[in-house]
């Protein structure tokens, strides 16, 4: 089936998120406006206006009412999904991010905890301040939302934390970033519980399985790897012949999709094929490639599976998103 092309962003895509029901699709890009689309037909619903920098990430609550976004403008905003109004802004300048309360740091990753009562925000190293992960409460009643930080940790991390996720039962935060190390942080103590140094280059993306027992990591070392989310044991390796920017796990089949591509600087020929901008599908268990899907004219930066597992969306450096509805042939693959 032909992919649906989503044209709305003028700059490279950075992140894609489906809501729980799989009917809404949120895209973030280096332009300042996160955008909402109908996941099925790709119709644009609207944009969230308020950020003043690249938007790196977003997450949406289980009830699809609240969208949280993190931006290079050093803020993390909370929006009403339906009306598009921002009802709360976490800003580095105005809040005490212990012990660093006098610098602005770009927000790189946000993730809501299971139950939507908390969220974690990772901030980039900036002006000598190293990267940190901060945990803030998410108030059920929007009027009661505060910027109070419950916990903040990050000792030992070098470079950016590109991705932060809540581990099983909200007991850990899983992070991966520029230093190529995957860490599980104890949410209670803020200490590193486990580390995995299986990747040789920086980690671009992490994605948990539906049941949270395992997650996949995407790395510039041209591989994606599957880890036990509890022990951080590396279970599988997917060898791609290009730097991997994003990897996702199918919610219904034992499949992995990964995307990436050569840096524009490294591509020597004009052919879009040379850059390896296609997304590849792998058998999760066998580590074998099943097929690939072409279309983008630049590296794929973001990937997300529809929770129903019947479609996924790719977001490219070329500024486009493509919704791929998987056809019956795909579901016959064994």
């Amino acid at each position, binding site marked *: 089936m032909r992919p649906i092309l989503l044209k709305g962003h003028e700059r490279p895509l950075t992140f894609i998120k489906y809501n729980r029901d799989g009917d809404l699709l949120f895209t973030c890009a280096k332009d300042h406006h996160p955008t909402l689309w109908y996941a099925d037909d790709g119709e644009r619903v609207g944009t969230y206006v308020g950020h003043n920098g690249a938007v790196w990430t977003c997450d949406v609550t289980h009830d699809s009412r609240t969208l949280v976004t993190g931006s290079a403008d050093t803020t993390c905003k909370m929006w009403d999904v339906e009306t598009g109004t921002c009802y709360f802004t976490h800003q580095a300048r105005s809040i005490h991010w212990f012990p660093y309360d006098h610098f602005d740091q770009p927000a790189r990753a946000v993730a809501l905890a299971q139950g939507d009562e908390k969220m974690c925000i990772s901030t980039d190293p900036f002006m000598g301040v190293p990267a940190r992960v901060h945990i803030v409460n998410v108030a059920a009643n929007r009027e009661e939302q505060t910027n109070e930080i419950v916990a903040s940790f990050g000792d030992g991390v070098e470079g950016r934390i590109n991705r932060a996720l809540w581990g099983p039962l909200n007991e850990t935060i899983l992070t991966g970033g520029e230093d190529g190390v995957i860490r599980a942080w104890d949410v209670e103590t803020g200490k590193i519980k486990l580390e995995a140094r299986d990747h040789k280059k920086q980690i671009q993306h992490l994605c948990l399985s539906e049941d949270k027992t395992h997650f996949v990591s995407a790395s510039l070392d041209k591989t994606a790897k599957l880890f036990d989310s509890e022990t951080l044991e590396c279970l599988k390796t997917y060898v791609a012949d290009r730097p991997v920017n994003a990897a996702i796990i199918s919610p219904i089949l034992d499949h992995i999709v990964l995307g990436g591509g050569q840096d524009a600087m490294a591509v020597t020929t004009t052919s879009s094929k*040379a850059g390896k901008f296609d997304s590849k599908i792998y058998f999760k*268990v066998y580590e074998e490639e099943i097929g690939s899907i072409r279309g983008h004219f630049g590296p794929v930066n973001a990937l997300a599976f529809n929770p129903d597992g019947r479609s996924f969306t790719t977001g490219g450096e070329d500024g486009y998103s493509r919704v791929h509805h998987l056809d019956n042939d795909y579901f016959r693959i064994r």
Partner: protein
Amino acid sequence: DDDVNVEEVKMDSGFGSVVVVDNLPKVPKAKHEKLATIGTVAEGGLHMPADADGVTKGFAFVEFLNSQEADAARQQTDGYKLDKAHVFKVSRFDDFAKYDAVPDQYEEPKPKPYVARENTQDYMLDARGRDQYAIRFGDETEIHWNDAQKKEPVEVYKRSFWTESYVQWSPRGNFLATVHRQGVALWGGASWQRYQKFSHNGVQFIEFSPCERYLASGSTHEGGGDTSVVVNFFDTRSGAKLRNFQGPISDFVVHAAGSRGGLTWPVFKWAGPSPEGAFFARMGNNAVSVYSAPDMSLLGKKSIKLEGVIDFCWSPADPILSVFQPERGGGNEPARVALISIPSKKEIRSKNLFSVSDVKMFWQQSGDYFAMKVDRHTKSKKSTYSGFELFRVKEPDCPMEVLELPDKNEKIVAFAWEPKGHRFAVIHGDGARPNVSFYTMIDDASAINKVKLIGTLKNKTANHLFWSPQGKTIVLAGLKTMNGQFEFFNVDEMETMASAEHFMATDVEWDPTGRYVATAVTSVHQMENGFHVWTFNGRQLYKHGRERFYQFLWRPRAPSLLPPEKEAEIAKNLKKYSKKFEELDDSIRSEQDSHLAAEKRAVMDEWKRWKQAKTEMLESEEH
């Protein structure tokens, strides 16, 4: 003792740069200076012992700047006739010391313990008739079976840091040669033991004789402001050095008008195997010198005089040389091509050519035909056009004809003879999608044989031609700017069997039987390194990706020992064999399938167990 990397340390006697010149005239002191004019000598490096009366003793010690120069001087002056009575005998000083050390009493050499050598043709005994290839990537060299039934490479042997630069099979496939700073090593047999080593410091280039009996190794050395060239000839079985050629690079480069200049390996080219002997030749200024193995002497003690010669080539099958001399005497003498039979040195055929700007020679594999692409310029020299001179070498009087393509101004992109056949293919055209034409040397319709066009394929993405070693099938390849497009074409039927792509492919190599083709992306590109193996009709067997991929080399096979009548008999009874092979292949395939299926099942079972355990644990923690 197979560690070839260990440097064989030789202590320098300090006299390496000293030669001894004997058979000098015995002259009084007054005439000493006359003798001192030979060679470039280190300051105060000439010492001529004289007797009490001041008369020289008839020999001299000469010290040069270094041992290379000393060797070169020795080579140039040894045997020099000063006059009838005085023929120089020049030797290395070190050799005197060496011979001094030889005991006067002859000692019988102790016999070396006999070690049975493994059969270096063991790879030809494979029960399933598979072929091997060598690949080199990163620091690794690996030998694999090409397993068409299992559709995967099956490892035979591998070794890290096996070679320091590249590897090369000997022409009959008995040995794999590895190239090191200290020299060359040959490996073979089932356990890949080292079979032989040849020391040659700084060796860069190697070339086996087609019969594998001899190995030439070459190197260039910088030093003293000039580059010198060393070429050694070895006996592959005994390891003995048979001859050494060395001298300044200028001795190995042709200084003629139209010469391409610079040193091009191979400096010495081997002739095809022949009953008359093993010949090799090199081109000099106004001459081609032919040598014969194993005595390595100049054939007939004389080079073949060929004024202005700038290119030569051996027939791959017979001792026949093709030579090209460009226009000489400021245009008074035309360019000329000639075929010369060796060892008789008789010209079989020659032809004068006019207005020639460049030529390229192409021998057909079995030596039946010889073609020369001739680029000519118009009178004004403003534009060039191309044509072919075709020689029927094996027919009486070696008939010759000229072929011009319909549009002779078109660029000739590639030319290739069908091996063992009578056809050739030409890629011609100036655009991005040139045409491919096929010609035959046999015209059934005509009483005399004439070259005839079979057909032209228009607008092909091809810039290279790769005939199957069996002929009939050709791969039209679009490499480099064409990104790796392939067309597997059947020339008998003039139909395309398959089109395929191996993105960015740089190399194409047919297996020795014409059943399979390998295409590779080598490290000239950063991405996509590795190789694909295809059937002759363009069906992909498997892909193999390897970073920093350098070489893919099918292992050659020695010519078949089967008499022709036996081959005919086999062809007649092929059904009987076919049945057996099909059963064998089916069982291997099903075994492979069930093996793979079992492997997959095991992996899946393990995964399921893991997941079950995790899920249960999570559930119990949640409650």
